[in-house]
């Protein structure tokens, strides 16, 4: 077709421009396709990922964008098979608040156990069990170690619908075949982009495009800030905790709570099965610290006790270690800001030492 020499009228231009395919259109089409393939591959393939160095670069929206820091850290670990034994701690914001800085946790663990270890804390506020599973699986892609999964009876009772919402709001930046399969089995068929699939991973980047552009313009690159903002400003006013709606949790419907707990236990069962096939990965279930002083409601305490018993049964049946080292650490109620988030570096150090004592046997007796 000759594009160049025929005289155009407006209607010609419109009809041929839209409904015939010339060289310009073909070249644009191929360029878009090739660039699109390269970009997609670079974003969602862990081996070619922009996060291979373990940091989110300019993709983190803020110093507390823990989904981005966890994603980058997991992909970084997946891209490195060398190094000391790795200890990867996954969980919710309770775990994040409990351990704070991974560097500081690593220091304490190395000193206490006498072993060189690499510690990563892959936790974020909206993490479900499935997020934690995807992050742990990615971290141990090329090398083994100790996988610590932080859980608690309250979040075991998060309903499938609420889990769906959390997955919808907080996609991870990579696709995960095992997490996708488990999400499909546990949460059922979904009428939207499949959780933990390649398109779901693209949502992570799409949601951060504006902040990425802002960061590029301003040359800004965030470091993870694991302490709460008011901890960093000793002069600043302490938050009024009594006003916080989330300062405690109550369970309204016991039957519903136990039904969703059973769903979560089935997910846990599948996660244990997955890691059983990895002889180089030791999975430890770790109960998150809880501030029992805020959980005074009798029905809530009974429901939690029931959930705890079911969890212990599962651990016994599957021969998996269920650690209560963090739960039993002598943390004062004043060191929590609510039902379970710790806001005290002294308390964090206690928990780091408790973790060291728990995992020391798994690292062997002889210091390297």
């Amino acid at each position, binding site marked *: 077709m000759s594009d160049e020499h025929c005289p*155009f009228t*407006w209607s010609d*231009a419109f009809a041929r421009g839209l409904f015939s395919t010339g060289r310009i259109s073909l070249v644009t089409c191929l*360029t*878009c396709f090739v660039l699109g393939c390269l970009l997609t591959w670079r974003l969602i393939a862990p081996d070619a990922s922009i996060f291979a160095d373990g940091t989110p670069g300019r993709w983190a929206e803020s110093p507390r964008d823990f989904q981005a820091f966890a994603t980058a850290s997991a992909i970084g670990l997946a891209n490195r098979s060398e190094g000391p034994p790795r200890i990867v701690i996954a969980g919710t914001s309770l775990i994040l608040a409990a351990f704070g800085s991974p560097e500081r946790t690593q220091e304490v663990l190395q000193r206490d156990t006498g072993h060189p270890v690499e510690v990563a804390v892959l936790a974020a506020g909206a993490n479900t069990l499935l997020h934690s599973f995807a992050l742990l699986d990615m971290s141990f892609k090329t090398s083994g170690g100790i996988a610590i999964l932080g859980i608690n009876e309250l979040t075991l009772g998060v309903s499938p619908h609420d889990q769906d919402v959390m997955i919808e709001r907080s996609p991870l930046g990579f696709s995960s075949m095992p997490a996708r399969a488990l999400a499909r089995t546990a949460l059922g068929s979904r009428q939207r982009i499949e959780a933990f699939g390649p398109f779901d991973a693209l949502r992570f980047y799409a949601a951060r495009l504006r902040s990425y552009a802002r960061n590029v313009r301003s040359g800004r690159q965030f470091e993870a800030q694991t302490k709460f903002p008011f901890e960093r400003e000793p002069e600043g006013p302490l938050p009024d905790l009594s006003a916080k709606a989330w300062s405690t949790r109550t369970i309204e419907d016991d039957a519903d709570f136990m039904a969703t707990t059973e769903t979560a236990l089935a997910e846990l069962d599948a996660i244990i099965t997955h890691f059983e096939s990895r002889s180089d990965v030791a999975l430890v279930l770790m109960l998150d610290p809880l501030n029992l002083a805020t959980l005074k409601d009798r029905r809530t305490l009974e429901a939690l006790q029931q959930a705890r018993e079911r969890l212990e049964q599962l651990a016994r049946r599957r021969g998996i270690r269920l650690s209560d080292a963090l739960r039993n650490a002598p943390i004062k109620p004043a060191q929590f800001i609510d039902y379970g988030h710790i806001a005290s570096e002294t308390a964090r150090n206690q928990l780091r030492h408790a973790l060291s004592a728990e995992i020391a046997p798994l690292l062997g007796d002889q210091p390297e």
Partner: protein
Amino acid sequence: MKRNDQAPRRFYIVLQVLQGFVLGLLLLLAFILFLSATSDISLFRYQQF
């Protein structure tokens, strides 16, 4: 007069670029769906535990 002759042509080029862009995206989407249906990065198949 000459400038008026060029205007429809420029409009044609813009439409062709747009058409190429849309076709490229559709081709990319089809390619990803094809890969996901046939390979390890499946969107629709899944393993049961």
